């Protein structure tokens, strides 16, 4: 319990005493939001999941490879 408390304090004090780090964390969080909640959700669907029937992916790709 003491160890967990010390680890908690370590991170808590570290985050609290950040100066430049605050700006960097803000940039990281905005970036992650854009990547995962904007780009991934709205612009980067899994093409095969969307177009092939479930369990039929191999047949779907095999047709794409047809001569």
């Amino acid at each position, binding site marked *: 319990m003491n160890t967990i408390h010390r680890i908690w304090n370590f991170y808590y*004090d570290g*985050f609290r005493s950040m100066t*430049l*780090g605050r700006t960097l964390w803000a940039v990281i969080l905005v*970036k992650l939001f854009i990547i995962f909640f904007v780009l*991934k959700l709205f612009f980067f669907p899994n*093409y095969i999941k969307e177009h092939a029937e479930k369990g039929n992916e*191999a047949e779907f790709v095999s047709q794409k490879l047809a001569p």
Partner: protein
Amino acid sequence: MNQLLNIDMTMVDWARAQFALTAIYHWLFVPLTLGLAVVMGIMETQYYRTGSEFWKQTAKFWQRLFGINFAMGVATGIILEFEFGTNWSNYSYLVGDIFGAPLAIEGIVAFFMESTFVAVMFFGWNKVSKGFHLASTWLTGLGATISAWWILVANSWMQHPVGQTFNPETVRNEMTSFADVALSPVAVDKFVHTVLSAWVLGAVFVVGVSSWYLLKKRHTEFATKSLRLGAVFGLISSALIMLSGHHSAYTVAQTQPMKLAAMEALYKGGTDQPLTIIAGINPFAQPDYEATDEPPLKLAVPYALSFLATNDMNGYVPGIRDILDGYTKPDGTIEPSLDEKIQLGQQAITALQDYRKAKKEGTSEETINCQLSIINSGMPYFGYGYVKDRAQVVPYIPVCFYAFRVMVGGGCLFILLFILILAPIRGRWRGTLHWVALFCIPVAYIVSEAGWLVAEFGRQPWTIQDMLPTWVGVSELGASAVMITFLLFLILFTTLLAVEISIMCKTIKKGPEL
């Protein structure tokens, strides 16, 4: 029906451009992380050994710059994985089993190792012991380097597919030997060469920033010591990169001879081949490699290409036309011509369809085994089955040729810079040298990206070497969809870069707390 005919070629171009844009921007952040990791590690080791406050503050300053770069670059590579699933779905499906393992390991290592030790490195001053802090600093760098290893393993497999077998039931390449994939000669060479190039970039950055302080006559002791350390580190890295560069060229000659021929604009090969220093190649048009034997105005070092490619001054190096027409290797084995490869590829593609049809219809085992045997023997040339003419398998020579010279020329420039920085030059010339060092920071990025261009343009048209060309690997999407995300990325990454440069400049202007 030929499904591939439905794919608009501009979709392939946009998907390639988008991947290139993402990778180029991602690579703007990565090398400085790898390079500064060693520099700050050495500086903190000095602090650990001497207990000097000077080295502590010096290490802290470079760690701050490392942190800015790390924060800006983190997660930018994930976008490449999104692009696989959306734009490159056929490719992604075909290689999923092989790509998944190294990328998953990279994710786990990156997350746990780097995030744990980065936190100790930044939050742990005066809270953990000096030894534990030093270990965390080195382990942060090691974590980043190990991450690079797994990414480069994935990339190397595309350049030299080994350790897998194609399963016609699942239409996927499946890993048969993790060791073969992780330790393929291409992966080892690529890792060593890439990491060393990142060290050189880190050294140029340290030398350039230190030079700025000296030009401004600020933090002179800090700048002088950082400058010398950066130059020594850069010189050692440069010496090592020359060795790894030679070995990489040898491996490329064995595994991707067309890439080497394009890098050298070698149209007709042979023994005793010279290494071209420069030649008059039009940067905006593919040269006529079919009708001419060599580019005009060629200035070359005798025998050097043969030595680079074969470790023998008189070794045989095939040119573009030799590779297209087929040639006999020095060990007597015959490399098939393009026409023969196309035939083998077409047979494998047809056999794949016939195999699947036979399985569905429950045809005899003998027929199925016969198709399987054709697939297996033709699989190394599977991609050639989609090739229609000779020009399709020749990379764009001007980019490969000039990017290679920018990479090597830049590397030589940096060696000269490091030597001059360490030389006892005083007075006016010293000031000029510091300006040159400052100017070399953006040059180092250009040189680093040029290396990436050589590696990636040189393997065109293959997404998987010889097995899958780009126009078969892409999804059947409209070009406009990819164009929109291309522009979104351009805005996102340019903003990130502008923010990074701005924060970096402010931090540098502020200087170390000495």
